[in-house]
């Protein structure tokens, strides 16, 4: 039961660093952002 969840059912995407500040609590926190070329390369 305590195993890693099925990766095929998950997705991830970069979000704004606004999330670093807990006072920011709106839909923009979980909105997808495009990374610049220097930031990209996760996968």
């Amino acid at each position, binding site marked *: 039961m305590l195993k*890693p*969840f099925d990766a095929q059912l998950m997705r991830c995407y970069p*979000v704004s660093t606004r999330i670093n500040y807990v006072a920011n*609590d709106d839909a923009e926190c*979980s909105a997808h952002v495009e990374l610049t070329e220097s930031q990209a390369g*996760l996968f």
Partner: protein
Amino acid sequence: MIEEYFDTVSDDDWTPRYNIAPTQPVPVIRQNPKEPRRELSLLRWGLIPSWAKDQSVAPQMINARSETAATKPAFRDPLTNRRCLIPADGFYEWQRRGKAKQPYCFEVNEGELFAFAGLWDRWRDPSGQWLKSCSILTTTPNVVTSAVHDRMPVILDPDRYDLWLDPGMTNVEAVSEC
């Protein structure tokens, strides 16, 4: 919506949030031990063991490693007797990139509700008030999360919710391994 999805009733007024930090209140679903119903209430994120001298341990107790929780004094008893669901529709992890950290949002089934496996405990403050708090179990990452972080929260299959919440199920090994 959470109440419907998880078949629970809410004890507290609360509003869904996009950004929750350690030591803040989070919605937690627990099984009523005497009646066949699940109850949703707000607990502080960062488990304070009942025997703690003060609250200062909370920020270090936001997560419990599933591999060792059964042997850790802070988590052993909650794992046996006080398991909970912590509902969400996403979570954030940060990837270190040199000095910077890039946050990523993780979702299940394109943004559907899901539940973390949680533990909870209660601690009595010096004024005699009970403070209830919780921790999220973690496990090894899958291929989606491993690109960002070396751990991931335990996300339960919905068909395991009843067993995870069952107060009568105190065989930790059986609960953990099924």
